[in-house]
């Protein structure tokens, strides 16, 4: 764990560059997609939605990096918050369809008509207002993260135990959302969206704007995260990561520190999820699958744990690779992903960003045996 402690906390200049790069790239792609189709610089609608998807995933990776890279909480359940944000956005988009659904019911989404429900369940109230839906995107995941984190950190659940119960959390959510009676479309989830705030979701201009918004959100997320980890609070986070007990003995409250960053991270993931749903056009319980959460962790590991830019880089690269792989050699993708997990943990413990800055590489391990293997000593 102290592979990271030698690294100066305040060395995040690259983050500003990454934020600018992400936003610039999104703007360029968006503009290019609006060029006439015969233009050599034209970018297809497919590429735009793909880019939007990558950027949304990058937000998820960023949120995972915040808690794993800086607070040492290996979350295997961040897809829970990503998915909840996505569902909250999906509820709004579903209500926007209005009477244009297959059953033409103005107040009930299609799947409820199909289940012959008469009224909207209470948790769907107000979701036709964009502002209320956005509030839900932020508040619901934050509440869940708050309750879960408050209980877990206060009782000092940590290490592998915490990882496993975060996985149980997202697994339980997946099972719940798969049920038809739960009120979120069951197996099929929410889909067939028509427009957002009156703008047709299938128009290139709308998609271009959405891409820019996603790029902007990611850039803002990066900057906010940089502000957090660069602050005094950030120092505290790293202290908790590297030696929770020492931090506690110095008079700090590691549980509160962790809870704060945990809730912030959950909200970041939720925003990513919401942006993801608009651009991909569907949200279903599969997003809660434990495998998705674990994949998000590997994006961070590939990019470089504890480097904010690394998370974004890793998410985009791995997902780009996945797109290529699944198009050309679908049956080899799992080999690729599996070997990526193994190879990264074995040979690239500080990820691609570690290659970038070999001079700042971690000091050799186990200088101080007491902290070198805290989780190894379950005794």
């Amino acid at each position, binding site marked *: 764990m102290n592979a990271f402690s030698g690294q100066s906390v305040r060395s995040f200049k690259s983050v500003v560059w990454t934020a600018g790069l992400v936003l610039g790239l999104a703007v360029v792609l968006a503009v290019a997609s609006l060029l006439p189709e015969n233009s050599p610089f034209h970018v297809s609608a497919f590429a735009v939605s793909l880019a939007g998807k990558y950027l949304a995933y990058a937000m998820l990776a960023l949120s995972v990096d915040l808690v794993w890279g800086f607070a040492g909480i*290996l979350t295997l359940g961040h897809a829970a918050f990503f998915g909840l944000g996505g569902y909250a956005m999906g509820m709004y988009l579903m209500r926007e369809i209005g009477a244009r659904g297959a059953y033409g019911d103005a107040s009930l989404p299609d799947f409820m008509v199909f289940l012959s429900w008469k009224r909207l369940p209470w948790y769907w109230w107000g979701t036709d207002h964009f502002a209320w839906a956005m509030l839900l995107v932020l508040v619901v995941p934050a509440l869940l993260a708050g309750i879960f984190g408050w*209980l877990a950190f206060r009782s000092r659940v940590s290490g*592998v*135990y915490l990882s496993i119960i975060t996985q149980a959390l997202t697994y339980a959510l997946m*099972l719940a959302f798969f*049920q038809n009676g739960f009120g979120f479309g069951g197996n099929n989830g929410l889909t067939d969206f028509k427009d957002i705030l009156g703008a047709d979701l299938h128009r290139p201009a709308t998609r271009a704007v959405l891409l820019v918004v996603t790029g902007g959100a990611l850039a803002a997320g990066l900057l906010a995260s940089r502000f957090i980890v660069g602050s005094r609070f950030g120092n505290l986070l790293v202290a908790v990561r590297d030696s929770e007990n020492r931090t506690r003995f110095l008079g700090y409250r590691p549980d509160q520190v962790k809870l704060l960053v945990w809730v912030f991270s959950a909200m970041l993931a939720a925003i990513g999820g919401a942006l993801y749903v608009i651009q991909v056009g569907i949200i279903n319980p599969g997003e809660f699958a434990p495998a998705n959460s674990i994949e998000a962790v590997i994006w961070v590991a590939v990019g470089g744990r504890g480097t904010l830019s690394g998370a974004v880089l890793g998410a985009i690269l791995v997902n780009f690779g996945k797109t290529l792989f699944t198009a050309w050699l679908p*049956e080899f993708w799992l080999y690729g992903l599996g070997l990526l997990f193994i190879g990264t943990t074995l040979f690239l413990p500080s990820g691609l960003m570690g290659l970038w800055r070999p001079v700042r590489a971690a000091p050799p391990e186990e200088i101080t045996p007491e902290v070198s293997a805290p*989780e190894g000593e379950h*005794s």
Partner: protein
Amino acid sequence: MRKLGLACLLAALCLGGGLGEASAQADDFSGLAGPQFEEMSASITALAAHGGPQGDAALQALEDRHLFSGADGALFIHDGAVCQNARTGEAASCPEDLKPVRLNNRIRTVLAGAHALRELSSAEPDVRLKAAQALYARHDMTMLPALEQAMSTEKVPRVHEKLMQAHAATVLAQAPAEGTQATRLKAVGYLAEVGGLEARGLLANVAASAVEAPEVRHAAQRAVSRIDWHLRVWSVLQNAFYGLSYGSVLLLAATGLAITFGVMGVINMAHGEMMMIGAYVTWLVQQGIRMTVPALEPIAILIAIPVAFVVCGGIGVVIERSLIRFLYGRPLETLLATWGLSLVLQQVIRSVFGPTNIAVQTPAWLSGSLMVGGLDITLNRLAILVFAGLVLAGLMFVLRRTTLGLQMRAVTQNRRMAALMGIRTPKVDALAFGLGAGLAGLAGVAVSQIDNVSPNLGQSYIIDSFMVVVFGGVGNLWGTLAAAMALGMGGKVLEPTIGAVSAKIAILVLVIVYIQRHPRGMFPVRGRGIES
């Protein structure tokens, strides 16, 4: 009595045969060719009552659709190879223009009754029991005289009991008439003793009937609520058995996980894939034995047990030596690496064996079930329960009575101190990981008998196994046992009331909440270190 009755029947037959064979039998058989329902039904009833062996053969042929009618009322039994005259049983050459005798549903009902009647007079108690069973389910009032006749002659107690039940059911199924009240009351009392869903249905009808006498109705109501209570008790017991069975599968799956976690602090995410490989090894062993020594096929599953243990254990040692040991001291990274490994293993199996389910055989001695009261105990689940117990006992022995066990416990308690005492911890790590993987292989053999075997097998068990390990705590097999049974039973007991998926969610949430209160599980290993 029975012999006397048969003798009478025989005498009558001989008598009939002596007097005017052709005419008498022509009457009984003549309706069979149909197509008039009344004639056919009369014919069938007559043949069933006193048709003799020839009548039996003809009725059987009718049921099997081997009965054909020729010109001028001639009947033939033709089963595809041999042709005979239905009336005489003599071999005959079948004419070309034979027409099969057609059956409709009404005739089939009459035929089934006739069948039961013939079987009621069979010399074999088992055949009579089956017939009584069939009549119990049919409660056909036309069978009442036959049932009474059979009851009066029956000597074998279990057949007699079944006949009584059939009689009671038949009596109650009829509309109440004057003067039958006492009989019906007796029948209600009898069915209440019998219990079961069938009896409950009949009694509920009686209880709800408007034309029934009040005493009978009330008795039926009491009987229904009594049967309901019994059924509920049995269904709770049945669920408890399912819970035990699932708990034992979880126990098998989780012990290996708990050992590697205890000794090395590593959660092996590829543990489920080790189970999957164990199941595939079972299949391979079965196939291999079928091709080489078919005589050993029934015990192939027993041979698969050590093979799966060795194969999976070997793979485990290789994984530890080539992967895990480089990640020593970084348990969270190990988690990621083993997850990657699980993806690769899944894909390897998918590429070699295909993505679909493979059919692992269940040997005959593991199929079927035992009925204990209202409890249906399937043999394969029972076997897994026993197997899990044996594995646990074996593991206890290894951990408590062998050098390896001693060393493993020492490393679990304090790795550095154990190393200082001269225990070669890398060797213990490798063997512990191998043991854990081997146990997963054993779990795979067990699971192959009750679940689909596909490349995804591991994933469906892994989360539940994790729950068992974190719930039970590390380094204590009793904790694993208690947690496996608690989770298995808890899920199955909640299932009938809130549904399977909700039960699973409830269990997950309960475990999550429990872990918050007891961060190291139910049976934590206590030490003095701050990190423990």
